[in-house]
């Protein structure tokens, strides 16, 4: 089944028209999205660096992860809230952009990975975890989220 009708429906929404009609709406949504991205990325990076065995090594992994968790969750919530109107208001552009699909598929995989495997590993006792798994999970997390960010930026640049 094609998603094309769904994207046509999104672009036709009154909200999409409203956003396109004012010159300030899009930039305001974009800058909030970017500030939330910085907070979210910081909360991801501080834990991924710790998973690699660097950074805040004087503290247990689980405590570093627990401290970062609220900023990760709220960062993601704001990213989603400000992301949805950006998709709907330019739905057809997104639909035909390969980078949009790259970003969205990456986002689904990265989000599931972060809230299942990565969460489990960060909360496991480090002695039981061993020296390898933390590093693997940290590297996968950095790669996935960097991929999402790169795909996102390229929607506006190359499509």
């Amino acid at each position, binding site marked *: 089944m094609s998603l094309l009708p769904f994207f046509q429906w999104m672009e036709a929404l009154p909200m999409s028209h409203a956003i396109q009609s004012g010159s300030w709406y899009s930039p305001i949504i974009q800058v909030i999205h970017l500030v939330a991205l910085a907070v979210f990325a910081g909360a991801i*990076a501080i834990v991924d660096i710790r998973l690699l065995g660097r950074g805040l090594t004087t503290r247990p992994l689980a405590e570093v992860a627990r401290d970062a968790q609220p900023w990760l969750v709220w960062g993601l919530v704001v990213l989603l809230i400000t992301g949805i109107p950006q998709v709907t208001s330019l739905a057809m552009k997104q639909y035909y952009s390969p980078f949009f699909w790259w970003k969205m598929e990456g986002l689904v995989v990265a989000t599931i990975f972060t809230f299942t495997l990565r969460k489990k590993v960060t909360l496991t006792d480090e002695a039981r975890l061993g020296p390898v798994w933390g590093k693997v999970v940290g590297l996968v997390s950095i790669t996935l989220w960097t991929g999402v960010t790169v795909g996102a930026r390229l929607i506006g640049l190359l499509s």
Partner: protein
Amino acid sequence: MSLRTVFEAIASQPSSVSIRESIYGYPTLLTSHVVAMCLFAGLIAMMDLRLAGLGNLGTPCSEMQKRLFPWQMFGVFLSFSTGLLLVYGDPMRFYGNFYFWLKNILLLLAFVNMVVFHVTTYTSVAVWDRDPVPPLGARVAGLFSLALWAAIIITGRMIAYSGLVPNWWVELKLT
């Protein structure tokens, strides 16, 4: 020699022209700039939240400063070099840009805020290192830094919206 002459001289450099005319130069630089921002501004924000007494409270402030520092330096190196190349590749796009100059002023203020904090409140860090709520000077520095970096990200994005600027700026007729 005026600033405009300098920017024009850079624009006529063959290396500047080749960045400007390359198809993937600008997208590559801008995308790297955003990824670098995630690392740099993200880790700065985590440190500032600790100083402001808002987050990462289990970590001593000095640990936050020292252990994240190499990563922040890597981030700032990447941000600064890609940012410099973006301007070098198309200087006249930035010369008359309101948000570009505002962003530079804010960067300067963020740097001053950091230096002032390090030579004042931070000298007594041993006393309050583990306090969940650091002294007023540290909280103010942390909140200032958070606000400044948010404003730097905002003005950076707004460079693309060169039409959405105050009237008095347009009347300067810089472009």
